[in-house]
């Protein structure tokens, strides 16, 4: 019995250990290369997403979901469909919002944080992300996945986001999960699924 427990502990701790393993320099180079090759081919990308807002004091995560559409070089739409309709478009230095039919526009100049998030999301699908001088990046291996952790260098950005974690599918070398950790132990986790790459997407999609 004791041996069984010991084995079980060993198994679990071994598993935990295997969950997140630092990449070697060679692995980092190969990983960056893979992501770059794939992302260079991405002209358009659309994906469903589920967002989990985790606040430590809540009994469960707040779940919202919808669709994200990206088109080169920097057209981006986040569209929440459940439990409400809220769509946000990043286009020509502007943010266009459609909140249940109520429309508004924000200049990204006035909303640096949105601008940076936009750059980050676009960067993570287009592969420009790893050259970003705004972050200290570390790389890890997971089972069937790769993980890159971005810590902002800028003090202002750091106030909002302590760390960003992008999880990549190992085979496809594209982002499957974005996790934004706030300064406290709270985070937003966005899971991407049903990804479609390079389908024809008209510019008119990015109106709000």
């Amino acid at each position, binding site marked *: 019995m004791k041996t069984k427990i010991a084995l079980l502990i060993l198994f679990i701790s071994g598993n935990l250990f295997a969950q997140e393993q630092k990449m070697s320099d060679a692995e980092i180079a190969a990983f960056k290369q893979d992501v770059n090759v794939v992302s260079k081919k991405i002209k358009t990308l659309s994906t469903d997403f589920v967002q989990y807002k985790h606040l430590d*004091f*809540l009994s469960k995560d707040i*779940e919202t979901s919808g669709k994200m559409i990206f088109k080169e070089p920097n057209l981006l739409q*986040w569209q*929440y469909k459940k439990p*409400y309709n809220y769509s946000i478009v990043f286009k020509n230095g502007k943010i266009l919002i459609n909140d249940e039919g109520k429309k508004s526009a924000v200049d990204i100049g006035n909303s640096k944080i949105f601008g940076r998030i936009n750059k980050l999301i676009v960067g993570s699908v287009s592969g420009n992300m790893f050259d970003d001088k705004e972050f200290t990046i570390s790389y890890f291996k997971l089972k069937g996945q790769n993980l890159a952790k971005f810590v902002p260098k800028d003090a202002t950005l750091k106030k909002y986001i302590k760390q960003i974690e992008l999880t990549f599918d190992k085979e496809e070398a594209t982002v499957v999960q974005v996790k*934004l950790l706030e300064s406290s132990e709270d985070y937003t986790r966005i899971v991407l699924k049903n990804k479609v790459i390079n389908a024809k997407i008209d510019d008119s999609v990015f109106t709000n």
Partner: protein
Amino acid sequence: MQKSTIQFLLINCLLAFVLVSCGSVTKNYTLKKLDKTSYQVPYFTDSKTDYVYKTNITVYGHEISGIFIAKKINDTTHRVVFTTEFGNKLLDFEISEKTFKVNSIVSELDRKILINTLTEDFRLLLKKEYLIQEQFENESDNIYKSKDGNRDNYLFISKNGSKLEKVVNASKTKEKITLLFSSENNIFADKIQIIHQNIKLKIELNYFKSE
């Protein structure tokens, strides 16, 4: 010409009447004998429930939207968090009837006047019990008057269904804040509006139906 003048006068009279009748909260209500000395508010009282609302704030013509989250963390205190739709935390307060603590607030919102206003609003929104001193009625509601420092709170409870539908926070002469509740089951409020009469601020909360 004459007809339109008369119409104009009529409208003016009507307007004057409306304005005058707004002067005092209870002016048009009938005083009644007290049927209770306190009232327990059902909304926001369950410590197991995450109260999550889609929120739209209109402040002097500007629109802010996001997610309002409230949770009762102990007997006296609620944690109140407001985030963007993306989940970025904009403010994080702990509020009780007497205490108040800012856990975090983004610099754009870190203004004393705003924090004081929101604290006052949230305190009223989350208040669990009112002590009643006077009672009135109109056709549809029983109206309870509860002293609140220099001001009074008037609770409008529907005769049909006994639901708390409105709270008016008023000075001796003027209404300051109005809270409107819509509740289907009388356990939580599906829709809430917080309307300020002296500043151009309106907060609308719509309950998040998770599937």
